[in-house]
């Protein structure tokens, strides 16, 4: 049961475009606003598919949605929607349901009037109110709604009227944690029921995994990676992607030796024979030759804390660490340890595993790590990029 099971094989963004079964296709789209310019962006979505778009502040996500919706003219490329090239169409012709980064409800109209604006005037209001459970709010003005209610109305407005495409710009940010899970579930239900493809921008990897069949990662105007959600989270294709996806542990390493055909061993510290991890092979077609400098990406959730002496199960590597601190989070206990020369490891342990296990600082522990959970990337990026200056001086 894989959340990405109904996902496409990763669309080959280079091959010439044929609309085929796709409901949305972006062909070498170069977006621009102010002094910002994106790289050419290619993307195809099937009907009903949801793409969750992650990326740093100022990556160009909103700009991309604005271009698809027709508010910005692309510098190059085309937008194909429901079988037609609509690059030159004005926004009101495109039949796109767009939830803007703020909810953008019309403050001078009631909820019902908001839902009857423009092309939605032809819809059956009663049916709409029922579908989104808004009957009680129909006569209120947006200023009289709570944040969560506002967002629900905005969502209804974006999804109503069977649009050809749904664009959602951070639909769940600015919602407090008490309201958030319910709203996320509701959103998931509506996106499932919706025939149109949708693109949802979010800063929260959890939202992306929960709602997107596909996940895309953008940074500084470049669509770094698009693919089935689980794939992208498991195998980010670049260091920037890994960072944006919130991979907690990124260590430098050197390809050492080859224990066998299916595994490759990566040394994390040149002089410490104990400090290595095994990774599964083949590895995304990367030629892993001995001596090559690589980056090892490991999610904290995949590191299993174990007593120091306990031997790792088969297929697992063992990292001996000195505990720095342990902190209970709401979903797990966060362990921070140091190993090798000066490398930090972050691990999440389920609270029940820690029951009755009193940890003291500087205690020696081992972290076990399965070869399948080790993701190796080429060391091509700058070693530790300073956060790029995103907003140009105005």
């Amino acid at each position, binding site marked *: 049961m894989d959340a990405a099971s109904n996902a496409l094989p990763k669309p080959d963004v280079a091959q010439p475009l044929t609309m085929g079964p796709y409901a949305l296709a972006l062909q070498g789209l170069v977006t621009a606003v102010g002094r910002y310019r994106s790289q050419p962006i290619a993307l195809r979505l099937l009907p009903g598919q949801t793409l969750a778009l992650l990326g740093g502040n100022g990556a160009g996500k909103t700009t991309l949605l604005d271009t698809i919706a027709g508010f910005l003219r692309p510098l190059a490329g085309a937008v194909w929607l429901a079988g037609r090239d609509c690059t030159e169409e004005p926004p*009101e*012709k495109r039949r796109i349901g767009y939830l803007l980064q703020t909810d953008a409800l*019309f403050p001078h109209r009631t909820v019902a009037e908001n839902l009857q604006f423009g092309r939605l005037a032809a819809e059956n209001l009663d049916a709409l109110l029922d579908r989104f459970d808004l009957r009680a709010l129909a006569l209120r003005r947006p200023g009289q709604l709570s944040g969560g209610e506002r967002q629900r109305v905005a969502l209804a407005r974006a999804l109503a009227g069977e649009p050809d495409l749904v664009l959602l710009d951070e639909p769940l940010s600015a919602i407090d944690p008490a309201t958030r899970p319910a709203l996320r579930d509701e959103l998931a239900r509506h996106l499932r029921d919706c025939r149109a493809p949708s693109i949802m921008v979010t800063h929260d990897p959890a939202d992306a995994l929960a709602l997107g069949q596909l996940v895309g990662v953008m940074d500084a105007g470049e669509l770094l990676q698009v693919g089935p959600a689980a794939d992208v989270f498991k195998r980010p294709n670049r260091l920037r992607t890994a960072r944006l996806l919130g991979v907690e542990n990124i260590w430098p390493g050197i390809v050492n030796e080859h224990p066998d055909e299916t595994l490759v061993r990566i040394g994390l510290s040149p002089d410490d024979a104990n400090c290595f991890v095994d990774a599964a092979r083949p590895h995304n077609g990367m030629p892993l030759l001995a001596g090559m400098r690589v980056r090892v990406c490991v999610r904290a959730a995949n590191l299993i804390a174990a007593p120091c002496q306990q031997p790792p199960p088969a297929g697992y590597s063992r990292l001996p660490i000195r505990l720095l601190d342990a902190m209970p989070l709401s979903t797990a206990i966060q362990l921070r340890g140091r190993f090798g020369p000066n490398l930090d490891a972050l691990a999440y342990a389920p609270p029940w595993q820690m029951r009755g296990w009193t940890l003291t600082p500087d205690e020696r522990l081992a972290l076990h790590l399965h070869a399948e959970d080790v993701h190796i990337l080429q060391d091509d990026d700058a070693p530790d990029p300073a956060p790029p200056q995103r907003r140009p001086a105005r």
Partner: protein
Amino acid sequence: MRTQRGLMFWVFWLAACLVLAFITLPLLALVLHPSLGQLREAAMHVGVRDAFLVSLEGAALSTALSMLFGVPLAYLLARQQFRGKTAIETIVDLPLTVPHTIAGIALLLVFSRHGWLGPAAAHLGLSFWGTFAGVVLAMAYVGLPYAVNAARVGFEAVDPRLEKAARSLGAGPWATFTGVSLPLAWRGVMTGLTLCFARAIGEFAAVVLLAYYPMSAPVKIYELFLQAGLNQSVAASVLFLTIVLGLFCALRLLAYGRRVERVAQA
């Protein structure tokens, strides 16, 4: 914010009270000057009533015209970025600076019988010399900058994202403007309307050059001063002020009554 009753607070209130006294005292002196009988007399005077009517109608019409043509310009200035925008902004402010008599002469140069546009207008049966049309023209000229500037501020305060939302819901540019931008810029537009109206109704110098007759209120008040004396003319102006103030308050209510946020909320 907490109302800090510090030294600055009092100094500021002192300055504010001085300003208010400075504005109010002369008007108070004006209002207290005529007796009730004189006020009644002025109110019964047919010429005075006619002049008030001319002024009110002229100001209303010139304001309506200013809004009709000025609001689109205000919207463009608020929304579009283009070269020469600063030049256009300066042009719009020009009538503010010109001494009013000179503004009248400038209007004559263009709209008189032999002026640049006078003959063409005459072809259409329009004459601005000594006609109601002339009153309206002069009023519109001095009032336009207020209409444009205030409406522009109103449009600038409307969140462009609301317009985007309307467009993507299938509303064309026109439906978006009338259904979203204009209602949300209401306050600014109404402020512009009020200021333009106020400026138009008070104008004397520019109007009198084009049209002494039909007499508008300021002209009539001046004539009363010459013909009948200070008391009568002050009585008429107090009456006039009262009417205008009433209208002013009504406009203000219209402008500020509909307090809706113009920004999409997070």
